[in-house]
């Protein structure tokens, strides 16, 4: 029994399934092959017109069915794909998962296509002038399904629950760009508490729309290096100028190691630790001393019962914004000290862009793959290193390495900081 408990006496958490969708492809094999070959999924946007937009590229997922539909269809569809892959891998009963569901999903709003449609309907029946009164008069009883789906924050989780047969009220959460990591952490805590033997944790985001791009542009958060989309995301480079929005989903099936062994499931890795800390400095900027990010990293390492020296690879948040990359470097320097120079750290966002709500989950999947495949994915577009950031970013080319423990960082707007430690199965 005790061999299935961690250093804090809690059940050890096994990862028994994982799945991923990104602009690189559907499924882990396609993603991993491209990610380790330095392929970029960033491209010019074709899904909607980009006139008047300052940024005209993104890592949209255009190849799945429904990808040209609404944000709901994408967000649900990507989650379904990643979760299906993870569940098949885990070998849990199809359609009756029977454990908890925790989903990180983007906030929802009725989209412009439906607003125009409602407005038109409202004007036709009530001959009102255009606007909210017209939309409201059309909404009751006549709201298009797409509007209803877009208006409900619990819609994605409820439909995933129905699809996979999870148990109980699912949790949908948002901690901005840390959401995917927080979903995994929230599921892990449920397993530690003994509320459930297994949990499905998903981060998903299909919310690249013109309005979303404009909102981030107005905050000056996005790269405007539109001429060459594939090289626009360049974390830790001197000429980085913002992140590139992107879509995708990542999923984990988590179980207590005991439950996984008891049912003869293949253990693919261990979720060894989680740490978080909120920042009270500013809505979009981090505290100048980096203390909240430092605390999140330290808490994750403590939670896993390891020292910085035992981390073999860091999967960076690495957004490619001037501020984030500098802050992440500073925070890691503070925790790792001189050892940091010897710890490779790379950013998947150099290839897949910033998948926002999904990022923490997708990057957790890639962190696990680094362990399983003994390969570090590179940071591409690293031609012009920032001299103020002295890191081994695994520049441009993948690297073979034996990896037992990975630290995966997620930092978001609103002072959200969450870190995960993922490890190989103990001998």
């Amino acid at each position, binding site marked *: 029994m005790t061999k299935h408990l961690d250093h804090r006496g809690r059940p050890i958490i096994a990862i028994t399934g994982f799945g991923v969708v990104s602009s690189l492809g559907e499924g882990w094999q396609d993603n991993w092959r491209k990610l380790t070959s330095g392929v970029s999924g960033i491209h010019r946007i074709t899904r*909607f*017109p*980009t*006139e*008047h*937009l*300052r940024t005209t590229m993104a890592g949209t997922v255009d190849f799945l069915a429904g990808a040209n539909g609404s944000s709901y269809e994408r967000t649900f569809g990507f989650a379904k794909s990643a979760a299906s892959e993870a569940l098949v891998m885990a070998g849990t009963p199809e359609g009756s998962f029977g454990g908890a569901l925790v989903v990180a999903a983007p*906030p*929802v*709003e*009725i989209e*412009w296509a439906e*607003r*125009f449609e*409602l407005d038109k309907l409202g004007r036709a029946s009530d001959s009102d*002038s*255009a*606007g*909210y009164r017209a*939309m*409201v008069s059309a*909404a*009751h009883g006549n*709201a298009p399904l797409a*509007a*209803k789906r877009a*208006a*409900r*924050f*619990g819609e994605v*989780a*409820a439909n995933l*629950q*129905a699809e996979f047969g999870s148990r*109980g*009220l*699912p*949790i*949908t*959460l*948002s901690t901005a760009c840390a959401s995917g990591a927080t979903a995994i952490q*929230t599921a892990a*805590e449920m397993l*530690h508490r003994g*509320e459930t033997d297994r949990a499905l944790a998903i981060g998903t985001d299909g919310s690249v729309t*013109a*309005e979303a791009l*404009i*909102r981030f542009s*107005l905050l000056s958060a996005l790269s405007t290096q539109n001429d060459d989309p594939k090289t626009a995301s360049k974390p830790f480079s001197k000429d980085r100028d913002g992140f590139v929005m992107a879509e995708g989903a990542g999923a984990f099936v988590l179980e207590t190691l005991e439950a996984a062994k008891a049912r003869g499931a293949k253990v693919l890795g261990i979720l060894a630790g989680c740490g*978080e*800390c*909120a*920042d*009270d*400095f500013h*809505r979009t900027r981090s505290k100048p001393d980096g203390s909240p990010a430092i605390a999140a990293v330290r808490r994750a390492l403590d939670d896993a019962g390891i020292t910085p020296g035992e981390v073999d690879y860091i999967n960076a948040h690495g957004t490619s914004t001037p501020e984030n990359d500098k802050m992440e470097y500073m925070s890691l320097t503070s925790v790792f000290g001189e050892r940091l120079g010897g710890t490779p750290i790379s950013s998947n966002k150099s290839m897949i862009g910033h998948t926002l709500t999904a990022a923490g989950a997708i990057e957790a999947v890639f962190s696990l793959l680094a362990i399983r495949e003994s390969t570090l994915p590179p940071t591409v577009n690293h031609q012009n290193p920032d001299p103020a950031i002295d890191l081994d970013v695994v520049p441009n080319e993948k690297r073979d390495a034996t990896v037992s423990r990975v630290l995966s960082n997620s930092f978001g*707007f*609103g*002072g959200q900081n969450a870190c995960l430690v993922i490890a190989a199965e103990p001998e």
Partner: protein
Amino acid sequence: MVSSLGVGTDAHMPAALGKAEPVIDAETFAPFLVHPLSEVEWATQISKRDQRQMEQWQRTGTFAAGLALEDAGISTDDPLRSAIDMTVAAAGGERDVEVDEHILQTMADGANDAQTLVNEKLSTDLRPTLFLAQLSNLLAGNISIVHKVTGSSRTFMGEEGAGLSAIQNSVARIKTGQSDIALVGASYNGQHWDTILTNEALAKVARGTFKPVFDRTDGGDESGLVPGSGGAFLVLEEMEHAKARDAKIYAIITDAVSDQGLDERFDKRMTALADYANLEGAACIISTASGAPARTAAEKAFLDTLNKPYRETTSTIGFMREVQSIMASALTALAMDAGQTPFGMEVDHDGPTAVLCVGHLSAEGVILIEGAPR
């Protein structure tokens, strides 16, 4: 607590004891009814500078969170604030109605490319920082900034279910030692055209003459939701932790349970929840019925099978979606602290009060609350 009834615990005591009359605004959004936010002296909790970064939903929640921390005796400079685990149930923020209507009108006037029009107008007309006032997790973000709550910060989404999960998850974390002290809450702005639109699209908003929620189930004009504005935050704390710092204890949450599933299995789920939460042992029920016709009728049918006194919060204070179960728990705790039964119900045996939450679209749950030991 903040609502149409006022600001703070004193202003809500009449509601907690069942003696408050609803405040209704039938004009501003006519023919729809809303419970308007009362006068709030924002500056008592939020600096002018920070107020400018928020719209009404975030401002209301940040204000209510400040009241809760103050009421719990945790002053602004108390280092305990950096150990508090915060869970906020949130939706998204207010859209700019003027910008939206300008775009819709330009299209109605014969513009021919809707998508390009949206790109152009939004790029030039949106206030750059409005996005931050709209982001779901920025209510929690503002609470961290304004009130220095930094232990951890999580935002749950998903209508009434989010509020329910926020309480349930925080209670579970405290019970198992994952957390010592939590700040749990939500806020809602019922006075916004986008809120009316969402509620009309998903359910139905009541028009005309105001009726109590259980009389709003026939699907007619006067049936449906009457949105309210307000917020409620609770400080939840492990008992010994609370005692050690001499905190005032309003009440005890003994358990919180929830479920969700298909409509046709509603009765089955309710029976199971009743069993699981031992509703049999409860002295009375506080219902958070929304007024959405079908789900409210189904809830009433269930309540009538229990043979227990029950009263509903929403008739007095309005439908506040994510806030529902949190506000009802706060009102219940308030009555218990005054040594009364919630809503002045006459009970025939001792036992906890069960806060019953049946969401207007989905999610069901029970929060069991007992008086503090005297």
